[in-house]
């Protein structure tokens, strides 16, 4: 197992804030909108640097999405910022008609996704957003794993033409990817090559998958770990290549098991190479209040659950053979 260490921890939303500032420096057409959550989205530095290119919308997310669509008419590259719940479910029709169907170059940037929002509880912990967004034709869906990757992804989506959903989170998590990485949309990142099981993880679950991989290695299980930061378009080639080698799959995500990364992988495999698969995901329920760590344990989204899923799916593979 390749060794991953970290010296620093940061929230992925800070990666977004710093990436937005950098994207704004690189391209004067980059503008930002926020629905009364500037602090939470870490947009203060962008606002300070480019006050005329920032629009405070108030608590009016539908209007924010519509205005972002309009700003593209005139050549702007708008980044909208609010919590993931208010970025997707609350404004689904606005995104569907004014952004996706209208082919507008809007970047929907969503913080506080999933259970790790923590104490605010289920009203704010959306676990359906990946599914909602990936079902929209033409929408790119990205869920990076740490501060550096979120920053790189934010810069990359400004250079990509087309609507994007960028999902990140609230808690402070280890930084284990390179600071100077080049983020390639749609290109899976090989975390660790292995032969016994493919673990496809996204977002905060990538670090958990690494922790799981280390413990599995101690038990003689050689896990391949792949970071699927781009859920749509899915890197089918990387997934199929890995599965051809390992013959079984664990998917891990901070999302409902319905409609998330796991379903994207399962659909790909069902058509191309039917393979035993276990889901590490929320089992079709809402979340609740608690600390992020407590919630990830209770809802089965940590390294221990990835280990159990890996062992289970390896056993299924052996049964089949």
């Amino acid at each position: 197992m390749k060794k991953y260490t970290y010296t620093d921890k940061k929230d992925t939303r800070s990666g977004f804030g710093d990436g937005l500032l950098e994207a704004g420096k690189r391209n004067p057409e980059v503008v930002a909108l926020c629905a009364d959550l500037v602090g939470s989205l870490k947009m203060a530095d962008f606002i300070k640097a480019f006050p005329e290119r920032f629009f405070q919308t108030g608590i009016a997310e539908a209007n924010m999405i519509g205005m972002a669509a309009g700003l593209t008419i005139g050549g702007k590259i708008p980044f909208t910022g609010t919590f993931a719940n208010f970025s997707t479910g609350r404004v689904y029709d606005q995104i569907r008609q004014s952004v996706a169907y209208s082919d507008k170059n809007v970047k929907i940037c969503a913080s506080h996704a999933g259970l790790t929002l923590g104490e605010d509880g289920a009203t704010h912990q959306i676990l359906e957003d990946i599914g909602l967004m990936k079902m929209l034709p033409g929408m790119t869906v990205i869920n990076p794993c740490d501060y550096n990757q979120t920053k790189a992804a934010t810069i990359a989506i400004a250079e990509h033409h087309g609507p994007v959903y960028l999902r990140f989170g609230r808690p402070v998590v280890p930084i284990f990817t390179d600071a100077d990485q080049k983020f390639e949309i749609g290109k899976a990142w090989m975390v660790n090559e292995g032969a016994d099981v493919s673990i496809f993880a996204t977002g905060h679950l990538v670090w958990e998958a690494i922790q799981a991989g280390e413990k599995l290695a101690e038990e003689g299980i050689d896990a391949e770990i792949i970071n699927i930061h781009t859920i749509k378009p899915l890197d089918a080639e990387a997934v199929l290549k890995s599965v051809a080698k390992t013959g079984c799959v664990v998917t891990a995500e901070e999302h409902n098991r319905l409609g998330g990364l796991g379903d994207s992988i399962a659909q790909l495999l069902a058509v191309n190479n039917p393979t035993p698969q276990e889901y590490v995901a929320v089992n079709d329920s809402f979340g609740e209040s608690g600390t992020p760590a407590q919630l990830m344990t209770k809802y089965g989204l940590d390294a221990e659950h990835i280990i159990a899923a890996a062992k289970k799916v390896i056993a299924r593979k052996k049964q089949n053979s």
Partner: protein
Amino acid sequence: MKQDIEQLKQTASQVRRDIVRMVHGCQSGHPGGSLGCTDFLVALYFNIMNNDPSFNMDAKGEDLFFLSNGHISPVFYSVLAHAGYFDKSELSTFRKLNSRLQGHPTTHEGLPGVRIASGSLGQGLSVAIGAALAKRLNGDDSIVYTLHGDGELQEGQIWEAAMFAPHNKLDRLIATVDYNGQQIDGPTEMVLSLGNLKAKFEAFGWEVLEEPNGNDMASVVAVLEKAKSLTGKGKPIAILLKTGMGYGVDFMMGSHKWHGVAPNDEQLAVALAQLEETLGDY
């Protein structure tokens, strides 16, 4: 080339013929609101706006129009065709398979003149505000126009947008309400009363103009000219334009029943007899 009032009336008559024929041709669509808004759209595209039919999505340096109540697509398509955005022969494809003239307007099929999809109501004012913000950033003084149904004002997003525009002093924005008092389920006052719209917009910080004769071409041009004269003074402008749903075809007038119903062959003939063919049918 600006049309004078007489020319505008001639154009409006042809557009009304097109509307009835398009809706008849596919036996679906929304003739009522389209006929009611014909004078407004004709005035806008043939007299008021500075726009370029060679069509560039970014529209730098030209006036913009957003149709928020997308179901009145027949009038929009006919006006765009006669304004030179695409050939009027394409009007015959309205709502048919493989057409760029979808039931509700969309950019998805690349139809020149359309800059946003609309149909799901309440979104166009936000989009127009975004476009106006882009113009401000680009140092572009041209004007952004919108049209909304009065029933559409029941959508909450309209009022989010209505709050944003004055707060941000978007004073090159002219939003017109097709104040025909009708919606699908009946008179607007019965379905969900709009109350005092003028007072509502004014309370939100808009400059409001009322035009009771929204199907009289000279009055429509005059109120739009008046609105233009009020741009650049710190406030967005709303026009409450009283129109008659179905205006121009006697049996369609003044009733919500022709909101979304197509005429049969016999009704078509009656309607066309009331509308002079001025520019040639498609």
